[in-house]
């Protein structure tokens, strides 16, 4: 199993992280070494062992259904990279063909 720079570029696009050519060449062998090392978990992960996703046996934690104060809109928008008419302004979300 050797991860190629092209594989890493694809994973980067899936994770929405644009990687430069230089980064891809640097990252691919590093990730290979790391993945080869962590693959040993399979040695002891028998079919009879149940998985643990979380240390605490908590499920469906709900709070009381009461109205509480929320943050003021302007305080939240103050940290936004771009704002318009009291809302977050985002880049276009539709493709060219639309």
């Amino acid at each position: 199993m050797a991860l190629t720079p092209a594989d890493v570029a694809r994973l980067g696009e899936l994770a929405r992280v644009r990687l430069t050519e230089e980064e891809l060449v640097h990252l691919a062998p590093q990730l290979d070494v790391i993945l080869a090392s962590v693959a040993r978990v399979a040695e002891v992960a028998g079919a009879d062992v149940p998985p643990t996703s979380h240390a605490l046996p908590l499920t469906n934690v709900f709070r009381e259904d009461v109205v509480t104060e929320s943050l003021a809109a302007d305080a939240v928008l103050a940290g936004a990279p771009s704002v318009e008419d009291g809302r977050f302004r985002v880049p276009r979300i539709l493709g060219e063909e639309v």
Partner: protein
Amino acid sequence: MSELLRAGAAELAGRIATGEVSAREVTAAHLDQIAGVDDRIKAFLYVDGKRALAAADAVDAKRAAGEELGPLAGVPLAMKDIFTMKGAPTTCGSRILEGWVPPYNSTITDKLLAAGVVVLGKTNMDEFAMGSSTENSGFFTTHNPWDNTKIPGGSGGGSAAALASFEAPLAIGTDTGGSIRQPASVTGTVGVKPTYGATSRYGVVAMASSLDTPGPCARTVLDAALLHQVIAGWDPRDATSINAPVPDVVAAARHADVAGMKIGVVREFGGEGYQPGVEQRFGEALAVLEGLGAEIVEVSCPHFDYALAAYYLIMPSEVSSNLARFDAMRYGLRVGDDGVNSVEEVMNLTRGAGFGAEAKRRIIIGTYALSSGYYDAYYGSAQKVRTLITRDFDAAFANVDVLVSPTTPTTAFTIGERADDPLAMYKADLCTIPSNLAGNCAASIPCGLADGLPVGFQVMAPALADDRLYRLGAALEAELTSRWGGGLLDQLAESPSGAYLNVGGVR
């Protein structure tokens, strides 16, 4: 003034409460120390002296009005830059959050402010708490006060270095795989990872949510306990918060007695890869505890050998999901918004520009481990190993009260030494990771020097038995301090290599 810097939090709070010294004087002394030495240490990303002095004045005014002060009122604290605090920039060590000023406080920030603790500023860390050296900070690397060419540990290296350079008597951090304990170990300070869920994650920038645990950092076990008591407790705003009483950690720290305590030494944590000086100090600490009446037995936890591998699958998987929130839309950096680029392209460009190398490595590993076709072999298997490690702990704690090991296999390594070898860097957390995977509590206590650099002694206890960490920690600390004629950091303060800290000759 240096005498105020050498004093611990418990002592300072007592003197402030009696009026022998004002909170303002204490805060001003620490701000001066930061101004004097932080050019060399680089522990702080942000210092707000005006705000700190105002908070100190409020404590002094309360005292003057005859109001009762809390046990840490007026004591300065260095806050890891992962906790939100209104009006103070929070970067989490990342360029992608540079300049963001949170509109709310973390629950722990609220608790600290309510207790009258004086926040001096925000400390440096590896980006999004990913690292063991602060070299992954998007801003700069923090230096170890014992030797400025060495790393201060990570991710909470800034908080640990602030304590060891007498810039603050208290600090807080977060521990996902060792980020409180490993920095404590390499700086000669005390660091505690409480039971998972005992300290609130609300308002703490998330790295791996099933592992992240905020906790106290200090120069003494009692100071850590006092801080633990202030920050712990159930929080309805954190869905994984434990609704159970906090063990009386302060009483445990004052009750430094290990007579009859059964201590298990983890057989798997030693040997190859462990620095001889670290093993030597660890062995001596065991003898000290035995001399104090503890019973020492060897315990095998066979699956701990797989903890690092499981961690480097589970953690990146959670990272790849958690860091999706940095999407350039609601806060932080935005790159490439030229009116033509689509939202996806702006996300790609922003995250490519804003995340550092380690964040990218982990996001990619996590994305890979969770992808269909690999999920069972990687993430699924890692979750099973998590079960096996928890079973190892359960079996061990059926026979012993606590488990112990060195906190980290080596003393502080040289800055740059492991920067391009991720696996070597990851091994710094070899001994600390199991407690994160199982969710129990653990601490690092200074146990001496090896080649002039601090060594940490790790103690692990069952979930919700955090008091045992403090009982053992205080006993070990009291005996070692009495043998040394002072704490480990007193040795630094009085030594030629610590002369630049300007705190010598007062005790």
